[in-house]
């Protein structure tokens, strides 16, 4: 064995300042934060700032038109709890969110299963399916407003023609009617989202699994539960949670169809907050407090959603 001659290495001269700064910036931890900073900036400016401003306003008696308001602590929140309309609003929101979602899920699943079959015009139908979802809600809600018209509603006309009902139906005329009508319109708008998401999931179900199950003796229903459902379960859970969150935070459909009426009986959080804060009374503090009552519910749902997504990743 031969040994290499020992070489002495001279200590390196200190680097110039500019080079040291560059090395520091290019080090991984620093660079990572640097790349994240635009995203952080957008989040801070457009999400965090309004959020914390909203919290602050909800603690004041600020009104529209006045630059500042008095700090009133949790008075707005307390007053809301005593307000019958607000309590009805909470109930409406839960009905709206939890009644429509199962229907959207079921209809979306059926549509997806149907559109996953091979038939002529399938692609046309798949594209058409998305229409309720991509048409601006404000516009499609106007169409529903016409369908629910107390005098001109084609639904009333048809039912009268078939002899089911005597006179026109006041679709939006009473609380129960109005809530059912709102739910129907919401289901119509939300079903495509489920259908498209689940359809994408169905296409990921390997064909051989169905064939293997068919050979082993499973009929169509058994195959659905044994093969299809487990594969699309993740997508179903995620779309359901998303849909609940979106339905809870809805505004447009209710605003266009009922504006919370009749007699403030069909408000959900979004429309009631608008009416309290901007539309009617102009009590910004109160409106902000209404919105913030939604926060714990949505935060909890989001936490469940994120947990689920992460559990699927590992």
């Amino acid at each position, binding site marked *: 064995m031969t040994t290499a001659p020992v070489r002495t290495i001279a200590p390196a001269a200190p680097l110039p300042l500019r080079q040291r700064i560059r090395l520091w910036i290019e080090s991984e931890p620093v660079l990572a934060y640097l790349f994240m900073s635009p995203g952080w900036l957008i989040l801070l400016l457009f999400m965090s700032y309004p959020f914390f401003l909203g919290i602050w306003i909800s603690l004041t008696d600020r009104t529209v038109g006045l630059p500042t308001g008095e700090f009133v602590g949790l008075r707005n929140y307390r007053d809301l709890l005593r307000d019958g309309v607000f309590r009805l609003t909470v109930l409406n929101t839960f009905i709206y969110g939890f009644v429509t979602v199962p229907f959207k899920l079921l209809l979306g699943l059926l549509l997806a299963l149907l559109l996953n079959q091979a038939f002529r015009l399938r692609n046309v139908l798949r594209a058409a399916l998305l229409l309720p979802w991509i048409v601006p809600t404000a516009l499609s809600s106007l169409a529903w407003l016409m369908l629910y018209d107390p005098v001109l509603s084609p639904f009333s006309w048809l039912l009268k023609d078939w002899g089911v009902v005597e006179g026109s139906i006041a679709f939006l005329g009473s609380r129960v009617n109005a809530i059912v009508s709102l739910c129907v319109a919401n289901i119509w708008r939300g079903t495509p989202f489920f259908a498209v998401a689940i359809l994408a999931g169905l296409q990921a179900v*390997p064909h*051989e*699994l169905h*064939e*293997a*199950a*068919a*050979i*082993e*003796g*499973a*009929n169509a229903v*058994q195959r659905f539960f*044994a*093969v299809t459902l*487990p*594969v699309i*379960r993740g997508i179903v859970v995620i779309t359901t949670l998303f849909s609940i969150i979106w339905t809870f935070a809805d505004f447009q459909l209710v605003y266009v169809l009922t504006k919370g009426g009749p007699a403030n009986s069909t408000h959900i959080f979004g429309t009631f907050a608008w009416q309290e804060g901007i539309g009617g009374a102009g009590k910004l503090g109160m409106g902000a407090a209404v919105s913030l009552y939604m926060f714990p519910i949505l935060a909890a749902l989001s936490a469940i959603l994120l947990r689920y997504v992460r559990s699927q990743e590992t």
Partner: protein
Amino acid sequence: MAEVIYDHVTKRFDSVVAVNDLTLEVKDGEFLVLVGPSGCGKTTALRCLAGLEEVTSGDILIGDRVVTHIPPKDRDIAMVFQNYALYPHMTVYDNMAFGLKLRKVPKQEIDRRVKEAAEILGIQDLLNRKPRQLSGGQRQRVALGRAIVREPQVFLMDEPLSNLDAKLRVQTRGELIKLQRRLGVTTIYVTHDQVEAMTMGHRIAVMNQGVLQQLDTPENLYDRPANLFVATFIGSPAMNIFPAKVVSGDGSYRLVAGEVTLEVPPSHRSRLADYVDREVLLGIRPEDLEVVVGSEAQRGDTVRLPVELIEPLGAETLVHLRGPAGTLIAQGEPRIHLNPGDVVTVRVRTEHLHTFDPQTEMAIF
């Protein structure tokens, strides 16, 4: 256990004929391999037997039962898929038990059969795992286990080894053969790999373009191919084929291609009587061309050919020779020392010559 019969089975997809008038009888307990290039209809033929494809015409029998229009689940078959088709959310145990549960087999019986199959396949320790936690070879075993527990009349296997790496494939091939011989269940095995076909099957059905070319034992397919397609498909490297003219004189027959002249062995002469002064296709397997190092006198069974290329494979050396019509490949000894451009003497084992009719491509001998 049962025999399987394809009786004039045809399967069309719109205008494409995937399986054309297939008539085939698989004996009870036989391991039959369906082999052919991709698109030859072998998989479609298997899927027709499974009931995953409806036949266009003809009948399929399992045992003495016509199953042509019976749904897959009532055919008493089990299938192993190329990608295994294991249920991803079920454990190995549940994957294997699924079919039995559907058939309302008592729980204890299910348990007994699953454990027995697991032991045969050496996967007892994997029963609680999910498929994604298994290696390719282990998944393949589970797929086999799922078929075994069903105790079906027929096993259908669609290229079950092609997703394994080369070494594991050879190992599993051997195990699969032993397993089938042990269980004695009629097995129909689809592959495009002629080595698998030759090593595994009691008999092999070679298909091309939807048509059954030849159904025979591995030895007969190799030594007596029925036509040009089978001759070139079976064997690696493929049989050398080139045109040659049949010349007769002095009571003997010779095949002449360019400067190459080969004496036809007496046993085959009568078959060539109709082809005198006509061209036939001459076929010689690479191992029937013996490269003789050193000079040797020309005889009726030797030719002199220049070397184009040497491919040393270790156990053998492939010698590419410039033949009368394109390259001829000869299988030479290992560690043979030759250089491109060398002219060598090649001895032809004329008793193993093949000839084919150039029009019909059917074997003459």
